[in-house]
């Protein structure tokens, strides 16, 4: 009985500890119970806490161990104001092995597990949840949970202290929660939207340059896609402008040759190109031919008019650098926007 009292008092404390466990709890529980609990308003959830109906197999001893560890704290003292953000930051990564196993009554661990299922709400607004649990507890057997009263007051007391710290840590929590929520909640739009991201992430990493892009969440993926599309469209605009500026000086014959020869030249047939270039170059200087022979072959296929092929070698190399600079330009803007 004493144990129970001590346990109950520090509700705020073990609420935080339980999150860390919850991260381990969730994968096996992904299906029904968690989402069902999520949808319950806090009153009913707390009722569930105190009713011995729910059973979850493996978690009991370890969860109870958490509570045991809390017993060392002074029950009557106010909650440490730093407790919440510190524990929150620990959130997802704490292994379950750190807690020793205890034998305890399964009844007691029921409330804790379902409580842990509600940890999101608890963390966000301990005050209101504490108050509500207080109300519910009043209805239930007073013998079991006299600590509820203390809990409510404690929530009020900590709010003023811990608000600042909570605000700081909130953003990280929101992101993590968003992800979890989107995975768990059965909303058809979101699920179908999210399911395609398996493919999208894969495609995106191959399409968007820069393997170090870390994409998490729906909004980030969309952001990335938008950036890329805008970047490419802008490039098309600039290039067409450049071509328009250059255009009047070029003969239409060039265009004819482009279209006529493009089919034959596209095959990367370098030997063929040599002969065609030698045959059809008009007024190309000796200098150019030497350039063409001595330069290393670019790995990319040569395509374009044969008059232009000797020039392709040098621009190809510059193209490679230009390519990377263009793409790195895109990448930089992407990264900047991501950081923002």
């Amino acid at each position, binding site marked *: 009985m004493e144990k129970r009292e001590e346990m109950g008092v520090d509700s705020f404390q073990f609420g935080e500890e339980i999150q860390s466990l919850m991260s381990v709890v969730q994968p096996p529980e992904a299906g029904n119970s968690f989402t069902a609990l999520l949808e319950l*308003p806090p009153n009913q959830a707390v009722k569930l806490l105190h009713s011995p109906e729910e059973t979850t197999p493996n978690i009991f001893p370890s969860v109870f161990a958490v509570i045991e560890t809390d017993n060392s704290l002074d029950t009557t003292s106010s909650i440490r104001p730093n407790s919440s953000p510190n524990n929150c930051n620990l959130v997802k990564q704490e292994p379950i092995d750190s807690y020793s196993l205890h034998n305890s009554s399964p009844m007691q661990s029921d409330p804790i597990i379902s409580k842990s299922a509600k940890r999101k709400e608890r963390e966000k607004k301990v005050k209101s949840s504490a108050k509500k649990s207080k109300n519910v507890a009043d209805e239930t057997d007073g013998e079991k949970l006299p600590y509820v009263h203390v809990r409510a007051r404690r929530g009020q007391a900590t709010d003023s202290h811990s608000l600042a710290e909570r605000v700081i840590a909130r953003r990280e929590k929101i992101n993590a929660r*968003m992800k979890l929520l989107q995975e768990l909640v059965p909303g058809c739009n979101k699920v179908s939207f999210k399911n395609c991201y398996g493919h999208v992430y894969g495609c995106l990493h191959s399409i968007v340059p820069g393997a170090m892009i870390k994409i998490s969440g*729906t909004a980030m993926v969309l952001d990335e896609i938008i950036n890329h*599309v805008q970047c490419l469209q802008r490039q*098309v605009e600039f*290039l067409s402008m450049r071509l328009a500026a*250059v255009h009047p000086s070029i003969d239409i014959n060039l265009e004819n040759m482009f279209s006529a020869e*493009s*089919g034959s030249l596209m095959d990367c047939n370098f030997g063929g190109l040599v002969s065609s270039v030698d045959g059809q170059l008009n007024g190309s200087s000796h200098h150019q031919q030497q350039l063409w022979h001595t330069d290393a072959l670019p790995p990319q296929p040569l395509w374009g008019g044969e008059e232009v092929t000797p020039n392709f070698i040098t621009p190809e190399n510059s193209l490679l650098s230009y390519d990377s600079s263009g793409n790195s330009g895109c990448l930089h803007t992407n990264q900047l926007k991501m950081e923002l």
Partner: protein
Amino acid sequence: MHTSSPLKKEFLKKWMEGLQICCSSKKQMNVLERKKKIKLSADIAMASAKKTPTSWSNALISYARRNEEYMILTDQLLGPESQFNLQKSTDRMIGFHKRVQCKKILKRRNTYSAGKRTKKKTGHPRLISATLIAKRLVKKRTKVLKRLVPGGESMDEFSLIKEALDYILSLKVQVDVMRSVVTATEILSNEKSLKSVE
């Protein structure tokens, strides 16, 4: 980059055809007009160079054809058989677009009438706000993406992303081809001007 060279070849061929048609129509054009035509022919070439016509490519072509000025160009470029297919797809898209707009109007009306009656928040406001924020972000971005991708207005989110990825791939091809052509022609023109100076 893993862009396919047959796609490049196809695109280049069609683009050159389009440019020829442009050049043959008028002799004197100012820079902006020329740029527009170049871009247009590039876009149409891109859209038509795809083997499997996707939604955005059809949309591009249909947008181009709506403008009378460009209709001739596109028709010439694409050839007569494709016109028939495009007509069907454009009609379908117009119908779909209208349907989407009607849905939006209905939605707006319903939200205005029902918004005041129902109270939204049942759970903890902070928890709700997290999901609300997420939803809002996603909505904003899908709107932007719909505007960017041609023909994206009348698509659901799932296919929108697919189309966007496909569009990105073809845009890359387009940019590659255009860039090399541009640099090549620039160098060529420089050399020609040098020669003329000599």
